[in-house]
């Protein structure tokens, strides 16, 4: 009761602060800006917030908070557009949405998928805020109960979702996840600084690959290439079926799923250090496990959209707990948010423990501004979804060059290197082949996303555990097997067992026909070759840096072992067995009018031209050539579309104060922006 006595007046104060017309005006302004920024996949909140920072200095705190929160809150909502319509995972929060959202768009149900996603987002945001209002008061000890072993177990729970998403041949799924984990270890190790599959001569690799690039490469590039080859619209037959009202009804019919996933979102979001990388996969896994008829997952099951989308907005609310109470940002945008809060007003608001004691009204304002921003953002998004869904009826050849433009720009923003584009292409190639041979791409991505947390938490938990065991055996056991850990182990084991049973029914790539032995076998051998090289490379790390080599060695060996078994199976099974799945044998890809390589060559040409003349000039040539030659458009049409593309790029990049990739030309001559 004592808790209520302090909470209720503060909550009242918070509402009094929020419900001023000018505050609401700033909130709406922030939301609109956030939506505009959110259309750029992979840029989102960080770019937007950086843009606002200069204005935060000395600003009235509540106005500044309204503006910033408005912007941050809608990014996980607005990036759903890219996930559902184009199959582009806008951020780590919307990866799982792609799995069922994009197939729905292909079926002509884009509006339905979008509105179901938005309704879920809205609801998740509200559930999150309600939960937080109470929880934030007692959150500190609970957050502190999550030590390294607990975080490791949550990461492993996330990893166990591979079982569900492994596809028809579980071994292939495990190997794909292992490969993802191994790709995630590329670069300088966190612990000892050893280099893995990298050299100081190629500085780009020492930082490792960025999630944005891997997400775009694994999901977006293969889909764009495949659709482009088929030369059709995203929605088959270019017609739109179910409308936005159906999506809202779908959400309402699955409201309890939405509630559960929202709670999952808040709880995982609350734990610092995990952030959004696991939550949507756990929510997706939960959605699959609680659905009776699982046959539609991966082919456009609306529950596969509702689950992750309910969780990812709730997660933003949960993420406020570590941010506000501990001053530890749960995500990149939250980190800027912390920095910006210090600039507000007279600088009196300092995130950290004092937020509860001295600034409880501000804390509550933040929580409910976030919820309110969700409402505003969602209403705007639902209103727009019917119209934007029409994009899926356009002939894809007219969309593809713009998508290549967008993903190249997004990739470049992650590291501001030309190598970002190369990496995008190479990962895109890997993604294309994973898709072709029915290796689970979600499993690969889960592996990649969780590679760093798995390694970090394992090493650190091991180090502290051995320290405790040295003190006494019981102290060590107490540390490693806390009640939370035991509960998580049980959940993980159950979900793996259920997952393996159900995996065969969930075909993320659709029903892929099997064909001849050669192509799948060659791909397997290439993967094995990479694993062997990576293993040898890891083994060369000196033993005193055991923390840097143990994870790549173990994971690499397990993956290689899976590959060896697959190899044996491949040699013994007849052609036509499911193990030889190959999209080029039959189906949409096989009957496509355009070849894989010639289509990829278009993308490659954009990157190669960028290397020579810089992005904007390369884009100019690329768009003109593509519309004229590939799309067969008239000169008039070509020039209009090209001007639109370049204009859009320049306006957005100019507003966000971003650069374009420079080429050799820019190294020799000084050109004015945007050419520089």
């Amino acid at each position, binding site marked *: 009761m004592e808790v209520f006595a302090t909470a209720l007046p503060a909550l009242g104060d918070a509402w009094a602060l929020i419900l001023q017309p000018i505050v609401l005006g700033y909130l709406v302004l922030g939301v609109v800006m956030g939506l505009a920024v959110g259309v750029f996949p992979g840029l989102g909140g960080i770019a937007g*917030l950086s843009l606002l920072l*200069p204005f935060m200095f000395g600003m009235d705190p509540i106005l500044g908070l309204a503006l910033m929160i408005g912007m941050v809150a809608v990014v996980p909502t607005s990036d759903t557009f890219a996930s559902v319509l184009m199959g582009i995972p806008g951020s780590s929060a919307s990866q799982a949405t792609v799995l069922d959202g994009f197939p729905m768009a292909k079926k002509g149900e884009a509006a339905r998928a979008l509105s179901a996603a938005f309704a879920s987002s809205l609801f998740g945001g509200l559930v999150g805020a309600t939960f937080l209002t109470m929880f934030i008061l007692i959150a500190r000890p609970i957050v502190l109960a999550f030590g390294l072993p607990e975080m490791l177990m949550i990461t492993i729970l996330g990893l166990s979702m591979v079982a569900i998403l492994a596809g028809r041949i579980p071994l292939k799924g495990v190997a794909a996840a292992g490969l993802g984990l191994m790709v995630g270890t590329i670069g300088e190790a966190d612990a000892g600084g050893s280099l893995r599959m990298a050299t100081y001569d190629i500085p780009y690799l020492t930082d490792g690959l960025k999630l944005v690039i891997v997400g775009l490469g694994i999901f977006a590039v293969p889909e764009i290439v495949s659709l482009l080859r088929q030369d059709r619209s995203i929605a088959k037959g270019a017609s739109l079926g179910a409308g936005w009202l159906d999506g809202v009804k779908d959400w309402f019919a699955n409201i309890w799923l939405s509630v559960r996933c929202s709670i999952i979102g808040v709880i995982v979001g609350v734990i610092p*250090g995990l952030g959004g990388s696991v939550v949507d996969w756990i929510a997706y896994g939960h959605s699959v496990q609680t659905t009776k008829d699982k046959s539609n997952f991966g082919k456009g099951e609306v529950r596969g959209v509702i689950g992750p989308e309910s969780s990812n907005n709730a997660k933003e609310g949960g993420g406020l707990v570590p941010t506000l109470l501990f001053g530890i940002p749960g995500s990149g945008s939250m980190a800027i948010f912390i920095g910006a809060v210090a600039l507000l007003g007279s600088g009196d608001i300092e995130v950290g423990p004092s937020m509860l004691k001295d600034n409880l009204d501000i804390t509550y304002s933040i929580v409910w501004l976030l919820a309110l921003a969700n409402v505003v953002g969602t209403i705007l998004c639902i209103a727009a979804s019917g119209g934007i869904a029409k994009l899926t009826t356009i002939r894809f050849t007219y969309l593809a060059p713009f998508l290549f433009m967008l993903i190249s720009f997004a990739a470049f923003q992650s590291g501001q290197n030309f190598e970002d584009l190369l990496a995008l292409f190479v990962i895109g190639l890997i993604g294309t082949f994973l898709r072709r041979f029915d290796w689970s791409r979600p499993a690969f991505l889960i592996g990649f996303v969780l590679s760093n947390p798995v390694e970090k938490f394992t090493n650190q938990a091991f180090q502290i555990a051995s320290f405790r065991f040295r003190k006494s055996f019981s102290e060590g056991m107490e540390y490693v097997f806390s009640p939370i850990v035991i509960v998580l182990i049980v959940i993980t084991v159950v979900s793996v067992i259920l997952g393996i049973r159900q995996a065969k029914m969930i075909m993320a790539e659709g029903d892929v026909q099997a064909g001849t032995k050669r192509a799948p076998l060659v791909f397997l051998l290439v993967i094995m070759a990479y694993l062997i090289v990576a293993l040898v490379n890891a083994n060369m790390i000196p033993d005193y840096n055991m923390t840097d080599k143990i994870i790549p060695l173990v994971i690499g060996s397990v993956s290689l072992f899976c590959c060896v078994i697959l190899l044996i199976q491949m040699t013994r099974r007849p052609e036509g067995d499911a193990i030889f799945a190959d999209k080029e044998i039959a189906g949409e890809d096989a009957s496509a009018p355009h070849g894989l390589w010639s289509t990829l060559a278009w993308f490659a040409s954009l990157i190669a031209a960028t290397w020579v003349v810089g992005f904007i000039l390369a884009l100019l040539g690329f768009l003109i050539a593509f519309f004229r030659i590939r799309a067969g458009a008239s000169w008039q049409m070509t020039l209009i579309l090209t001007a639109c593309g370049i204009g859009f790029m320049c306006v957005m990049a100019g507003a966000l104060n971003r650069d374009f990739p420079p080429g050799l030309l820019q190294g020799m001559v000084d050109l004015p922006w945007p050419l520089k």
Partner: protein
Amino acid sequence: MTISNFTRRAVVGLIAAAGMAAPVAAEVDFSGKTIEWVIPFSETGGSAKWANFFAPLLSEALPGQPTVVVKFMPGAGSTKGANWFQEQEHDDGTLLFGTSGSTQFPYLLSDPRVRYEYNDWIPVMASGTGGVAYLNPEDGAKFDGSANALKDTSFIYGSQGATRLDLVPLLAWQMLGMDVEPVFGIKGRGDGRLMFERGEANIDYQTSSGYLGGSAPLVEAGQAVPMMTWGALDADGNIVRDPTFPDIPTFKEVCEATDGCETSGEAWDAWKAFFVAGFPVQKLAFLPGDTPQEVVDAYTAAFQAVTERGDFADISSKRVGKYPVFVGDGSKSALQTATNVDDNAKAYVLNWLKDSYGVELN
């Protein structure tokens, strides 16, 4: 020349220069231009906070009130951005570059990735910070101003890496004879503090602002006991109590009180050299090496005007800490102090890194 002599002279110059740098009315005009302040870290770090604090103030103070935007170029622990800046030439004075201790340390330790040379650049502003180490209450009770009673305890410390700023606390604890085992792979000091709060680590350190925001409340609540600060430098280059924490002894005092720890000799000189490079002169703002004098003067005058604002002490203490900001010649001396470590100190640290953590930087 020994390191302490050098430091003293540099600091004397630095303090003197900071006091009398006379702003000259320059004929440079930035009207309508956009100044890019490039930070070789991500949007989320302390350097971002630092640059974002100064950017709007600088914009007001520069002739023509240009827009100052902060740009981020993270990579390879700031070596990527610094290597990039090394290649830049003066264009129209609209490029400013910021570095931090994490840029200084790889340079001092001859990291193979370093392709930049501090002496090629023109510093226009420098600012510093301090640091506080603290213990959990149980071990804190054993702390009596010396580390004598702490030598039998095993400590765990969440660390960002032995070659980073954490070199300073790790070396200090080792000199005190304490058994501190670093758990590497922490992403920021905030994560280290969280590890301490969870009881997984039992010793921690924070820079001044981090301590004030997150750790001081722990001390008030009896969940942490401050042990020592790294100290601050006086005009003679001596380590004195940190003005932000006058009640907490410095490492120097604790070392003097502890058996077997000496405030002279090569270990001490090495520690002090890296402390000076990492804390009192932690962050610097640079112009490219070939920038004409009048542009340099314009920036110097602008930063001078910023530090002379009536409210500067007030707004800066809350956002970047109560530490001196050096401009003009002061920042030059500061740079000298921060980037010159004598070969013995360097060799000692390289050797210590190799023996204790197996780190070899070549």
